[in-house]
């Protein structure tokens, strides 16, 4: 079903206003977009992290849909239990509604500490959508590096020091790890292209089985960008091909957006002060390495999508 802005403007957001996310938080925008794309009853889980903390400070909750937070590393396992309970009770005739299940986690709860739980849930084939809001570090606890943090970025545990210029490693390609689980649907999205993001959520929720969407979400505290640029900075990650928008449905790759022109990676890097040290002469080689890495990844993606 097509996404209609007119209809959406009349839809009550499943996330209520008054939550305590930062002004300009990319993650809460992305999560709201995901939920606005749902059409029937939905039950959500969330890993410990910014979005859980900001939306559920007792006795308040921003969630207008059933919600469970269990711990940091187990959003997928928790939701696999919820979804299994649903199947059990439906089989017994105790529930007749069609309900969809969405598990959320940040990059910490998904790429790192929750990877086993996520992999297990995907392998078991639960009928749920896992959404990673990937803001590329452990922002909730004070901007520590994660395996999603880009090479060269300064974080509080991998700072740009005199001897070491930020994170040494490239980010882990979790989307491809999910594709390797042979799940029916995996995709990358960005909140700047909300029609693409919401369409992916709708496609995913209409497929039976385990689905995964990885959404790049900016964090002005961690990325060190002005609050009013949170959407622009996500867009630039896509324009520079650092964060390609693509989907893999039943093994078939489709690139959803191909930038019209080649925008160098430094156009994205220079918007964020977490990369500021890379522009010193002695660190320029890291920018070159990032460019090279991004080019190679893009070429590989073109290959996979049959668009050499």
């Amino acid at each position, binding site marked *: 079903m097509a996404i209609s802005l007119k209809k959406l403007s009349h839809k009550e957001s499943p996330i209520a206003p008054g939550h305590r996310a930062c002004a300009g938080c990319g993650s809460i925008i992305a999560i709201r977009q995901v939920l606005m794309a749902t059409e029937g009853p939905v039950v959500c889980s969330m890993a410990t992290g910014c979005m859980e903390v900001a939306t559920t400070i007792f006795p308040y909750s921003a969630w207008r849909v*059933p919600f469970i937070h269990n711990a940091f590393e187990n959003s997928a396992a*928790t939701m*696999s*239990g*919820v979804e*299994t309970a649903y199947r059990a009770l439906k089989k017994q005739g105790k529930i007749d509604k069609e309900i969809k299940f969405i598990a959320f986690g940040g990059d910490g709860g998904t790429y790192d500490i929750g990877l086993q739980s996520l*992999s297990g849930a995907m392998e*078991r084939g639960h009928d749920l959508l896992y959404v990673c809001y990937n803001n590329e570090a452990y922002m909730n606890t004070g901007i520590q590096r994660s395996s999603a943090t880009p090479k060269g970025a300064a974080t509080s545990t991998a700072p740009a020091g005199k001897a070491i210029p930020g994170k040494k490693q490239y980010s882990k390609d979790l989307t491809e790890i999910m594709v390797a689980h042979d799940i029916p649907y995996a995709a990358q999205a960005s909140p700047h292209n909300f029609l693409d993001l919401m369409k992916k959520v709708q496609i995913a929720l209409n497929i039976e089985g385990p689905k995964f969407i990885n959404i790049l979400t900016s964090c002005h505290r961690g990325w060190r960008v002005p609050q009013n640029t949170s959407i622009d900075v996500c867009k630039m990650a896509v324009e520079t091909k650092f964060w390609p928008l693509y989907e893999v449905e039943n093994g078939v790759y489709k690139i959803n957006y191909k930038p019209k022109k080649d925008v160098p990676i430094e156009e994205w890097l220079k918007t964020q002060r977490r990369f500021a040290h890379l522009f010193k002469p002695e660190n320029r080689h890291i920018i070159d390495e990032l460019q090279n890495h991004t080019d190679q990844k893009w070429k590989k993606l073109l290959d996979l999508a049959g668009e050499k």
Partner: protein
Amino acid sequence: MSKTLPLTGNYACAHAMAQIEPDVVACYPITPQTELMHKFADFVADGKVKTEFILVESEHSAMSACVGAAAAGARVMTATSSQGLALMWEIVYIASSLRLPLVMPLVNRALSGPINIHCDHSDAMGARDSGWIQLFCENSQEVYDTTVQAVKIAENKEVLLPVMVCFDGFIISHTTERVDILEDHEVKEFVGQYQPDHPLLDVDHPVTYGPLDLPDYYFEHKKQESDAMKNATQVVIDVGKAYKALSGREYGIFEKYLTEDADYIILCMGSTAGTAKAAADDQRARGNKVGVLKLRMFRPFPADELAQALAGAKAVAVLDRADSFNALGGPLWGDLRSALYGKCSVPVSNYIYGLGGRDIDIDMIGQVFEDLKAGKYSDKAYYLGVRE
């Protein structure tokens, strides 16, 4: 109408689980719990239960999925041992704080390290402050009966706390005994239909489980959990009585064996109680007034009841199948001394025994009775059956 089957503790437990027929079981195999899980998997594979069985990739995910499924509104069980419980530990606390009435057989096994697959109670003791009710079983019959009762205890609205059904790895889990089994319908009627209060799957009444609870509310919620644990004692007693009416087998918070006129009493838990009873019989045959107090309910700890039961003794020895590594004594002993303080001045000595499956026999327990009679006492634990 019951029937008698030759069952190991694991099989007795699996039979009880099949008759309870939970909506969801999420489980990960670990020695010595494995055969329990295998047997239950057979019931699932043969279509004898309607249970949805989730074969998770770790115990951490087992407990996580159990929490999700129970919050969703399902009746849920899992089972584990030792390292499995240790890996679950984080979520074990969350399950009780969310007041989810899970039932988890814990086939007691020593914690690593060094790695060891045999029985002691260090796994259960590591979770003794987790807000779970902990019931210990002496034999396979008790495993079966306690598993059935655990569902009714956990789901009582005055309790709503998860229950661990603890039984000794290999000693009970792998020993075949006669076990009387109730009819399926008797178990089903006894446990009744599960009626969750605020299930996640009631999408017309959305609730938030697991919110962030700051200093303005956390304390009250923990106090409510503590109150629920206090309520559990009477519920364990009541469910035990109701079960007696059904099965003829009586269960309370502890069993008094020859203690009424006893001068010297041994307090212990699990399979060792059977050995201790035999040792008490030997002593009685020689005219020594001794008895055994088998503690069934370790959490909540029945402090007042124990003080009353031990008030007439001249000396008591506590057998602990776990060390607290506090340079003082075992956990059961510590709790008992605290329970007796100011109420009862009977000297209570402590024997740590059986770690990592080290055998304990009638003669060793007989020696403890002899020690009590001889007035041997220390305010630190003795170690029974260890080479020093």
